[in-house]
Each structure stands twice: as structure tokens, then as C-alpha cells.
């Protein structure tokens, strides 16, 4: 186990800069999720930490060691790849014991360690099989087993669940988290799925186009997104982001919709172009509310997701109570002013 410090890390491919000086501090035993849309540089960053990609600038430390230019094999890390990367010519047991074999650990000790990891992951019966004889979920477990057996200082995961079906993904998500709580190894986990990030992370790093947008605990990001990007990215369904201005003590859109504002506002919001953010789940349906016409209604049983057209603004709502709405119905919505987020449209920053 170890801390990981990333300082001003940069990566260029030729003239193209894909990581622009990133700083992340990871505490010992922390579960950190790097999240961001596809192509934002998550894998590149993770691969630089792993030593699979040369860094173009900056410094990476694992514990006290400066590893920026150390080959992967000396960094004492383990990685789980998206496609599992199991050695096809080795059995499950040999896959899991490969790193120990390279370290010239005793056969009997390797067998004991592999057995222990297999027991944690429920792989005892599969140890003599080859990877091609396993299902996706089992391969995923073997890949994790290979990482556990190593007992490394840091675990790295690169979108490990994206090849599994939805149900298995939820199950494995839980298993990875349980495993982390059990063995407590510092973990850096890459995903494009903000739900995975929210459910698994101690700390989330939101990346966008090679820059860090925000670092924080899941609920911090949810409650106080630092900018429009994080506001739109974290949370599902996504936050409503509505253009408008502060005029005469209220928020008005260009189409004339008036929305409630929080009690205390920064002094300088008047006149500026603003973005008004409200999460779909913070809108209630109540008779005294703003009128809107339902243009989409999706019920999942536990909740109703609806898009309402209010004076030409398309507003997503998530209602927990069950009531009957159909396409075209008029619904009255109440926005909780305490839950409103305001952003400066120019800078994208939270006000």
C-alpha cells in the first residue's frame, strides 16, 4: 500500500497535447476514480502511472519513490485491463501466479497464494481451466485475482466492467468495492460511467479534454459541482442547464420563463449571462407550480422520468411518487430553490 502523487503530468503525442499538466494526490488506501467522457485522456493518464506510456513532463510518485521514468515491471503495481488481458496459453492458476513465478517465489507458496485469492473471488473450481473456457464475468474475476495475488502497492483498473452486461456490471461493481474494503490497497479506477464513479469512489477526479475539471468526494461533486461541465456530467439523469439572466430579482430565460432563485446570492450576478442548473430529482409535481406540457414520459416503476416543455424550455424531471401522466398532459412543477446551482456562462464556473 502506498500514496500516489501526480504532479503537473503532461502527455503529448507529437504536437498534440492530450494531458495538460494534471495534479492528483491520492492517500494511502484510497479508492480514486478517474471519470470523463471517452477520449478525455483517462487511459493515457492511467497508463503513465502504470509505466506503459512515457510521460512528457511532470512527476509521478508511488510512496516515496519517484517512478516517472521507471519501467512498468519495477513499479510494484497491478493492472486490470478492459479486455482482461489473460494469457491465453496459461491456466487460470498459472495466470494468477505468473507474477510470483517471475519473482522466483516457491511453487508451494505460489499455490497457497493463488488458492487464497481464488477463494476470495470464488474461482476455486476454475483453476485448471483456460481463459477461453470462461465466461466474461469469470475472466473479469481472474484478472482481479491476478492483481490480488501480487499484493502490489497500487491497483489500476481501466474500464474493467465495460465488456459485461448491465446486471453483471452492477454485481462486479459491488465485488470490486468489497474487495477494496477487505484488502485496502490504494486503487485508481478509470471509467466513463459516472454511476460507477459515484458508487465506488472515495474521491472522484473529473477529466475533460486532458484537464481536471474537479476533484472531490462523490457527494461534493453532486452537491456543489464546480463548473457547468461537472454539473452536466455527474448525476443521472443529467442536470437541467438553462440559459438566462437575473432580472428584477428573478431568473428569466430569453423565452420568458421565470424560475425561482436561492435565498442568498452572490452580489454580482445581476445582468450577466447565467446558466441555471437544477437536477431532475429536485423538481416536484405540485399544483401551485410552473406549468409545463409533457413531451416525453418514461416510467420504470420506481420513478417517472418526464420531459416538460415550459414556455419553450425543455426541462427534465424525475418524480418519485407515482401518478398518471401521459404525453401532452399539463404538469405543474415546483423547483426547490435551495437546490438551484448558478453558473457564469462566460467562464463556466459556479457562482
Amino acid at each position, binding site marked *: 500500500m502506498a500514496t500516489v502523487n501526480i504532479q503537473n503530468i503532461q502527455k503529448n503525442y507529437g504536437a498534440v497535447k492530450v494531458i495538460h499538466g494534471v495534479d492528483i494526490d491520492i492517500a494511502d488506501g484510497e479508492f480514486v476514480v478517474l471519470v470523463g467522457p471517452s477520449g478525455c485522456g483517462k487511459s493515457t493518464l492511467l497508463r503513465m502511472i502504470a*509505466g506503459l506510456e512515457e510521460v512528457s513532463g511532470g512527476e509521478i510518485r508511488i510512496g516515496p519513490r519517484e517512478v516517472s521514468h521507471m519501467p*512498468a515491471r519495477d513499479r510494484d503495481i*497491478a*493492472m486490470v485491463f478492459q479486455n482482461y*488481458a489473460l*494469457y*491465453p496459453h496459461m491456466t487460470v492458476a498459472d495466470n494468477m501466479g*505468473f507474477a510470483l513465478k517471475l519473482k522466483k517465489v516457491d511453487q508451494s507458496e505460489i499455490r497457497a497464494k493463488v488458492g487464497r485469492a481464488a477463494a476470495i473471488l470464488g474461482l476455486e473450481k476454475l483453476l485448471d481451466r483456460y481463459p477461453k473456457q470462461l465466461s466474461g464475468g469469470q475472466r473479469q474475476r481472474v484478472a482481479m485475482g*491476478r492483481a490480488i495475488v501480487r499484493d502490489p502497492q497500487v491497483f489500476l483498473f481501466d474500464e474493467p466492467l465495460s465488456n459485461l452486461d448491465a446486471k453483471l456490471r452492477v454485481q462486479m461493481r459491488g465485488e470490486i468495492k468489497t474487495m477494496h474494503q477487505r484488502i485496502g490497497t490504494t486503487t485508481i479506477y478509470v471509467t466513463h460511467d459516472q454511476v460507477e464513479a459515484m458508487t465506488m469512489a472515495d474521491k472522484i477526479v473529473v477529466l475533460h479534454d486532458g484537464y481536471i475539471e474537479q476533484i472531490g468526494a462523490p457527494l461534493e461533486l453532486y452537491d456543489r459541482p464546480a463548473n457547468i461541465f461537472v454539473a452536466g456530467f455527474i448525476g443521472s439523469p443529467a442536470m437541467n442547464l438553462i440559459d438566462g439572466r437575473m432580472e428584477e430579482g428573478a431568473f428569466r430565460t430569453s423565452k420568458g420563463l421565470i424560475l425561482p432563485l436561492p435565498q442568498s446570492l452572490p452580489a454580482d450576478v445581476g445582468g450577466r449571462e447565467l446558466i441555471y442548473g437544477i437536477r431532475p430529482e429536485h423538481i416536484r409535481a405540485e399544483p401551485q407550480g410552473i406549468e409545463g406540457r409533457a413531451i416525453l414520459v418514461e416510467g420504470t416503476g420506481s420513478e417517472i422520468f418526464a420531459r416538460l416543455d415550459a414556455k419553450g424550455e425543455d426541462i427534465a424531471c424525475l418524480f418519485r411518487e407515482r401518478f398518471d401522466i401521459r404525453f401532452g398532459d399539463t404538469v405543474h412543477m415546483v423547483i426547490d430553490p435551495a437546490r438551484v446551482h448558478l453558473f457564469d456562462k462566460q467562464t463556466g464556473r459556479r457562482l
Partner: protein
Amino acid sequence: MTSRIIREKTLDQVGLLFVAFVMVSPVILFFLWMISLSLKYEIDNGAYPPILIPETFAWSNYAKVFEENNFLLYFWNSVLVTGSATLLALIIGVPSGYGIARLKAEKSAVVIMIARMTPGLSFLIPLFLLFQWTGLIGTLWPQIIIHLVVTVPIVVWIMIGYFETTPMELEEAASIDGATPWQVFRMVALPIAKPGIVVSFILALISRGTTSSSA
């Protein structure tokens, strides 16, 4: 239901066997005819209708071959030359193919290909001079080396194709697991490329015939 599937499967297999038979039958017939010829006296050779199995076998033909030529020695030499040329080609070609595939250095592979396309005769004189200087004339080395000119490019090219299809992730996983580049090659890349090695072994073996003229 199941029985029908099974029947269709057997039908498929019979069909496949038949196709295979039709495809190889000319080769088999040709081979049989050669054996027949070798066992016939000269009068029977041009007989019409042709005789496949002569009434009396001319075993003496074989005795004569072994008497007049040092047949066993030639045969042994040929095995030695082919065998060592093929093995050397694998030893040189497989790692080169790996290196070229991993360094994305296809340009160097083109150089090897050009060497392969250049008419063999243009190598012959420089090589001959080289052998003379090094005093190798009269040994089997010149023949082996000339074969390598053909077999190495074959092996390199097949192996490049194979190593390029091996997922890079596997080798990355191995290096994270603590393998040195050489261990990655030996313990991961090489075992996975086994089918490619078999294919290039066979092709290198049978490619031999084409250069025997220059030997």
C-alpha cells in the same frame, strides 16, 4: 431433431473428405505413377494401354541408383542442408519478425522483401567470392546460407503478421507483472505465436526446392 443434426454433420464430413480427395488425387496419382515407373523395365514404360502394376518388379532399378550414385550421402546432405537452413531461419526470423512488428518498423521488412525479390543469381557471385575467401567452398555451409536467403524472409514475414495480431495488452500485462522484455517475448509472445511458427516452419521447409538450382 438431434439425430438429424448429427446426420447432417456426418454428411458434411463425408462431403469435406470427398472434396479433399478430389483436390489431392492428381498428386497421389502422379506419385503412384512415379513409383510404378521406378519399378518397371524400360519396355513397359511406353506400353499402351499403360501398365500401372508391372508383372515383374524391376527392383534392380533401385539397386542401380544406390550403386551408381552415393545416394545415401546426397540424401543425408540434403536433409542436413534443409534442416539447418529451416532451423536457422526460425532462430533468426522469429525474433526479427517480433522486433519489426513491435517497433512498427515495416520499412525494414520491405528491405528484407527486396532482398527476396532480387534475382538469386545476383547474389551468387558475391556469395561465391565470399565463400572462397572464407574457405567454406566444399562444405555444406554455402548451400545452407543460400537457402537462408529464401527462408529467412518467409519466416520474418509470416511472423510479423502473427505478432501484429497478438494483443499488445497481453505483453503490457506481462511487463506489469514484472517480466523483462526478453521474458515477455519468451513467456508470452512466443507461446501465443506457436501456430505462426509451425506455418513458417512448413513453408520454409518446402520453399527449399526453388533455390536448389543455385546450389
